[in-house]
């Protein structure tokens, strides 16, 4: 199978530098890293990709069964690393991807040498003695929102937007195409993201880890950031003065600085 095509892999930056893999979260695609790539490109080789079912991945590769657990997405990551034969790569995951990175590092320790977790949450739904911030009924509401907004997606346009990795200009002009996803696939990803519980996986992390959280994040509240940082031995927690769930978009300078500081420490 052609993983580069399946996951719409993009490699950019400095081929001599250490490799940084940027992994988008639930909702959009690798375009989310648009303000991050320029800061890294000079000294790092930067790898971007879309999870199957997102962005311009190959829709034919989607399997509701495989992607109904975070392990399926983690296997995507491992296969992307294998396709490029990455060793000791620095994996930067946003939102659910932060947890996918944890699972991937466990599956293929030789491939991933460090983790950056941006606005992570190992469990979104409140649980006995744990506050994730959401109830199960909230997730159903999100699924309804997905159902009522086929952002830039329609069955007629899907072939243009998706599976055209070789002709990106086709999707470029389409409004909302960064978040355009087949609603059925988006709903699988949403359930997997918001219903999974990866709290126990955190303690198995044994690579240098940076946890980035925002001061006001409606999806990953600060107590969750603290929980993640506490659970991963030796991890660093940095709180960005940023609002929202996407500091790499809303506060790119601060996010990039924290990222570069961490990368400099690793060298």
């Amino acid at each position, binding site marked *: 199978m052609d993983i580069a095509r399946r996951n719409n892999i993009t490699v950019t930056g400095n081929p001599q530098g250490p490799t940084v893999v940027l992994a988008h979260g639930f909702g959009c695609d690798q375009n989310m890293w648009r303000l991050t790539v320029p800061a890294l490109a000079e000294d790092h080789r930067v790898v971007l990709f879309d999870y199957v079912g997102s962005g311009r991945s190959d829709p034919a590769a989607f399997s509701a069964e495989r992607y109904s657990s975070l392990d399926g997405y983690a296997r995507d990551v491992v296969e992307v690393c294998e396709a490029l034969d990455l060793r000791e790569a620095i994996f930067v995951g946003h939102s659910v991807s932060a947890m996918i990175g944890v699972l991937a590092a466990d599956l293929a320790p030789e491939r991933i040498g460090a983790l950056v977790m941006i606005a992570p949450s190992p469990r979104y739904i409140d649980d006995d003695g744990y506050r994730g911030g959401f109830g199960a009924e909230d*997730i159903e509401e999100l699924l309804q929102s997905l159902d009522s*907004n086929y952002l830039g997606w329609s069955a007629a346009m899907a072939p243009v937007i998706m599976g055209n990795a070789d002709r990106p200009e086709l999707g470029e002009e389409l409004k909302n195409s960064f978040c355009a996803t087949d609603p059925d696939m988006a709903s699988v990803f949403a359930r997997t993201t918001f219903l999974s519980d990866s709290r126990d996986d955190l303690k198995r992390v044994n690579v240098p880890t940076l946890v980035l959280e925002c001061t*006001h994040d409606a999806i990953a509240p600060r107590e969750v950031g603290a929980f993640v940082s506490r659970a991963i031995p030796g991890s660093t927690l940095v709180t960005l003065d940023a609002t929202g769930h996407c500091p790499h978009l809303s506060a790119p300078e601060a996010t990039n600085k924290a990222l570069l500081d961490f990368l400099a420490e690793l060298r």
Partner: protein
Amino acid sequence: MTRRSGRPDPSDADGDRTEDAAFAALLEDSAEELYESAPCGYLSTLMDGTVAKINATLLGWLGLERAAVVGRMRFSDMLTVGGKLYHETHFAPLLQLQGEISGIAFEIKQADGGRMPVLVSSVLKRGSVGEPLLIRTTLFDARDRRAYEEELLRRRKVADEARMRAETDRARLQDALAVLQRSLLPDTLTRVPGLETAAHYHTASPDRLGGDFYDLFPIDGKRYAFFLGDVCGKGPQAAAVTSLTRYTLRAAALHDADPVAALATLNTVLHERYTGSGDPRHCTVVFGTLEPDPVTGRVAVVVASGGHPPALVLRADGTAAYLPTPGGLLVGVLPSASFATATTELAPGDTLLLYTDGLTEARTGEDRASLYGEDALLAFATERAGKPPSAVIKALTDLLDSFGDGLDDDTALLALGIPDASVNSRAEDGR
């Protein structure tokens, strides 16, 4: 507004003056008034979502006082929790990437606990060096539209479920059909000592239910019966007659193996069943018995035909001929019918071939004027005389395939032959 287009209204000067007054009143409508009482919600927020300005329309929808909102709430606080998740994962990133986003469906929470569907559009206002300053948002009342969309989604769900049910039903019916189909034809032909058999069945009906039939079965210790026929019509109705015909003939043969007696019984059954039903049904059939002689290796054949095309006998010596059964009537048309009998004997290397008119009436040209015909079949068979039944059926199957669209009826083929154990010695004999 005629004023704008510059076209005078010739019919009504008074009306013109009234319009002037209305237009003047419009001009006095202040920007402030337009903003506050617009038929949509207006909202300006800081980049972190904090509300800086909001119009009276939106406050009314929310059921909140201005003082409770400005500087105190974020836009996402107005949304349901699911909407907030959607806002963070889709709306906010897209707004930041594109600078604008339009027509996104959300529900806003109202102070009285209600929810109101709205369509939201936002643009980023940037400063002189492109830095984002604030977000301007409009919200449109989407209650009716949302109800309509929900109706569409609901119907699509219903349609999807109906389609899935239909697919399940279809699979089940196809299984049932396959069982019925198998009941019309023998799974495998009964082995007759010293005889080789081969058959082919083609159905023109998309549900694979045909009106042609054949069978071969033992009737007593030494004799076997066979038949092959064609029910008028195609599809399920024909298949029902096929079923009745097949089981009647099998039962009749066990009672009295005489071919004429078997056909007479079938005639009575079909006539009794379908006469006066408003749906008269009949069939053509060749029925015969085989009696192998274990000493000579030869097989005595007795056949009777009810309106069916004559059987063909392919001889080991390379000749072929029809086995005429003249005068046999269609089965099931008249209360009592007479049937003609013919006899022959098969020797090693000989094959008896039975077929239905799907073969001889296959179109070989553009219209029904050019049919394959019995002469062509005789010539075809003659070339294959002396070959074993399997080879004859294989050649005929290829012939049927070559007709393409010209083969538009059910077709059944049955070949019964005695293997020629002395092919080599015959060649030496110079026969």
